[in-house]
């Protein structure tokens, strides 16, 4: 079953000098897939992920998430969508420095309507355990390593049970070992929980984690590769 479907998606930047970052991209993603978007620098990978994560508005084309056309969503609805249906991990460790690891993770639960008023601290703790940070609940970002911060970001992205988890080069700032740990973690989530993941990478080595690879070049899909 397709969770995301995009149709002839275009994104053009600028007013006088136009940059065609996405020139008409069409594809579908099935639930449970681990999809990696690969391509050279400047090929439009981040731009594509921003559109899918509802962080930006495409110039034209459509994005369906669970059969809902996101074009029709109000700003408010989009916010709720980001909160409850999508998880987003940035390349930089985008955790809030004024909050502890635990607080960073339960923040989305505080405002979510589907938290069912359950004990959000407990849920957040479970999430942090899942990413292997049970000993770092009360640490602030300046007391965490890059890899640990990225795990907090992953826990935060997962805490509302999103339909899709987006990750834009989550390991770009990490060393090989930390990168491997993060990717293993993501793969585990994908395998054990059936979490749909769409990740951007330009590391050829990451291919082994993917179920499917989309190759982007100059704003267009040039190859759609199913791995095994």
């Amino acid at each position, binding site marked *: 079953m397709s969770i995301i479907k995009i149709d002839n998606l275009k994104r053009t930047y600028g007013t006088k000098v136009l940059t065609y970052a996405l020139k008409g991209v069409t594809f579908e993603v099935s639930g449970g897939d681990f999809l990696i978007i690969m391509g050279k620098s400047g090929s439009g990978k981040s731009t594509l992920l921003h559109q899918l994560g509802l*962080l930006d508005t495409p110039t034209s084309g459509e994005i369906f998430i669970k059969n809902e056309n996101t074009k029709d969503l109000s700003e408010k609805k989009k916010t709720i969508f*980001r909160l409850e249906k999508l998880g987003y991990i940035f390349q930089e460790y985008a955790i809030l420095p004024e909050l502890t690891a635990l607080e960073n993770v339960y923040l989305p639960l505080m405002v979510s309507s589907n938290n069912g008023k359950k004990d959000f601290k407990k849920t957040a703790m479970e999430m942090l355990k899942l990413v292997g940070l049970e000993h770092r609940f009360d640490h602030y970002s300046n007391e965490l390593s890059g890899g640990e911060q990225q795990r907090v970001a992953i826990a*935060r992205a997962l805490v509302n049970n999103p339909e899709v988890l987006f990750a834009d080069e989550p390991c770009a700032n990490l060393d090989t070992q930390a990168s491997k740990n993060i990717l293993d973690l993501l793969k585990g989530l994908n395998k054990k929980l059936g979490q749909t993941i769409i990740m951007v990478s330009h590391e050829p080595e990451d291919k082994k984690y993917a179920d499917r690879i989309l190759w982007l070049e100059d704003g267009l899909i040039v190859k759609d590769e199913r791995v095994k």
Partner: protein
Amino acid sequence: MDKLNTALFLAYKAIVRGNIGTTILTISVMVLAFVNLLFLSSILLGLVNTMNRQGVDNLYANIVIEPDSEDKMISNASRVMTTVNGVPGVIGSSRHYKIGGFFTFDRNKNNQEVKSGQYSVISIDPNKEKKITNINKSIVYGNYLEENDRNKIVIGKDLAGGKSGSFEKDSLGGINVGEEVTVSFENGVTRVYEVKGIFNSKFVQSDKAAFITNDEMESILGIANAAHEIIVKTEDGVAESYYLEKFSSMGIKEDIYPWTDYMGMTESFSKSFTLIRTLLSAIALLVAGITIYIVIYINVLNNKKQIGILRAIGIDKKIIIISYTVQALFYAISGIVIGLVALNLILVPYFQVHPLEFPVGDVHLEIVQTELVLSAVSLTIAGFISGFLPTRQITNKTILDSIWG
């Protein structure tokens, strides 16, 4: 409710985890803005009030009774005083003669170094006067007059001269207690007096006067039981106008004036000061508002990326705006509270102990409650706007602009 809780939670964490130096600096700016809003204005008010109080305490008491326009003097002064003193609320009254005199002081009695000048001489009943004015409390050298003093005179420090210097040119150049001064009165009588005391009321208008007893004055004028004016002291809290009517209704035919009628100069001062105070406050408020806006704006700008991240993970704009507005309000209100404490526990007591010395008397900081409330409210509003506007502006940008832009 979830939204408000979340906003308050974020604001709380931002304040608690924020850079202590920045927090102190921000609050200090608020404190200064608040104190600045009240300080000059309070000094100007203190100045006006001092002028008024000095007029009442040293020259006019609360009510002045003068001969009606036909007469030169109040005749049968004791009748007027008995009537007036019988009115409830009247603390007492005293009668004065006032006459100009030309003072000559020849220090070495050899015509070498003669100082002279025209001053007004006021006569009093020394004991009755004590209840009405403060001259007896202002004696700085020598002594106050006694009932049966005849060839004794008490003079103001600006008349005596020599000691403080501000009106030195017109003074007697530093006459001392025990020395003799010759006074030629307007009616042709000339007498020699020993300076019994020198007073300093710090009020320029009274510090140029001289006092003798009524008995002495009556012998100069060849008159009895009369007065150029009777001044009446009343208890606080009742408007002078009440007594004006009361006195008239009790058959006092003389002209009756409240002390305010004699303070024309202060009144015009006071009017200009009100204008100046309003202007100063308006400017101070503007400066405070802009300062607060800039300080908060920089704070919000520094957190642009965080605001973008909050929005990216699905935190409602409203929560973000409330959170930053609450932070701005926290800074503003902390500034107001600390400013209040500084004013009431440091500045006001300081000026109580070290008043500003003006030629009209000692000036303290006088804060009007309504102005205080007004300043607090306007700063709170400035804080609110400073938190709200920049945050709304930043949350209206696209998410990616906030994070990367």
